[in-house]
């Protein structure tokens, strides 16, 4: 059995598989390395899993059905089936198509990160002049567009931003390997978060500061989590969002499809300092 070590937001995972092709792909796609037992959360890949997607294209983008029973996260999808024991920190997955291995890992990470004092936020995140900017909104709001409109963007995420508290309780942004369009080499964690921006496409470019009490209602639906109404996690996600909003200002960013939104951001944030 091959064991490969992956890290997501400094959370180690050991993926076990007999398949050399999967090992090679994980090493390349997630910068994985050879691992020892007990080095992290264990994920075992079922032997008949395969990287190639065969005749299942209609299922790409379809989320899994998810539930938690007796502390076990269960994910069911036409192209993958996975479980993850929250108590033991061990999971198993069968998949047909590499996209679905990624989907399983991403879903497990969105759950585990909450237990580690973090959040997976539906957003893109750009590093610019030493600070990170989180752009969020529902699908079609422009999370990818702002990346395209930015000159030489350093991209921490284009779909799932991984935020996690450090040992001082401050949120840091971690490199997200869960990308939809813009891939990048590994980026180290960064704690300097300039703001969270809810995108509104408009003919004018301006920012509106959102009061934190309003922002919490806006940000809660942006947190990736596979299941609704799981009491323990709802409590944690709510508290983590409240903590995040104490540290990071939130704005509505009205923007049009050019790069002038950066001038507005610089002007408003410059005044805030």
């Amino acid at each position: 059995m091959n064991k490969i070590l992956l890290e997501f937001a400094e959370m180690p995972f050991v993926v076990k598989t007999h398949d050399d092709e999967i090992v090679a792909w994980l090493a390349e796609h997630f910068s994985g390395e050879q691992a020892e037992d007990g080095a992290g959360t264990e994920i075992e890949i079922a032997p008949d899993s395969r990287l190639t997607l065969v005749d299942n294209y209609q299922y790409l983008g379809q989320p899994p059905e998810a539930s938690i029973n007796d502390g076990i996260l269960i994910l069911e999808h036409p192209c993958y089936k996975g479980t993850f024991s929250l108590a033991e920190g061990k999971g198993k997955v069968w998949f047909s198509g590499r996209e679905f291995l990624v989907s399983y890992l991403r879903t497990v990470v969105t759950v585990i990160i909450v237990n580690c004092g973090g959040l997976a936020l539906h957003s893109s995140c750009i590093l610019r002049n030493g600070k990170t900017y989180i752009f969020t909104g529902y699908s079609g709001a422009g999370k990818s567009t702002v990346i395209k409109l930015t000159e030489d963007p350093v991209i921490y995420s284009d779909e799932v931003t991984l935020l996690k508290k450090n040992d001082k309780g401050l949120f840091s942004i971690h490199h997200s390997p869960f990308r939809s369009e813009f891939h990048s080499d590994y980026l180290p964690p960064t704690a300097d978060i300039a703001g969270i921006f809810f995108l509104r496409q408009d003919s004018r470019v301006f920012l509106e500061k959102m009061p934190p009490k309003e922002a919490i209602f806006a940000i809660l639906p942006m947190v990736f989590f596979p299941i609704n109404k799981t009491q323990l996690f709802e409590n944690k996600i709510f508290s983590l969002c409240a903590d995040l909003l104490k540290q990071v200002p939130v704005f509505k960013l009205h923007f049009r499809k050019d790069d002038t939104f950066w001038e507005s951001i610089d002007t408003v944030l410059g005044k805030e300092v």
Partner: protein
Amino acid sequence: MTDLADFCRNSTMITRVIDGEAVIMDPQQGKVLALNEVGSFIWELLDSPHSQGDLLDKICREFNVGREEAAADLEEFLAVLKSKDLVVTA
């Protein structure tokens, strides 16, 4: 609603104070409710059991409002909290 009963928070609710005002999460329902300044003051008091009369005295002192007006608003507010299972009566 009787003036004699003591009201206190339903202990299953999660409260965070954001910008000086209370935001309450009902974990059973997955719903979030934000209170205004006066509501947040009352919610803070309800951390321990209070009668409606006690609450009214403290609101009038804190916000310098007339007792009659405050009583009607408090009655309405407590009814909302009860309808959402945010408070229990002792």
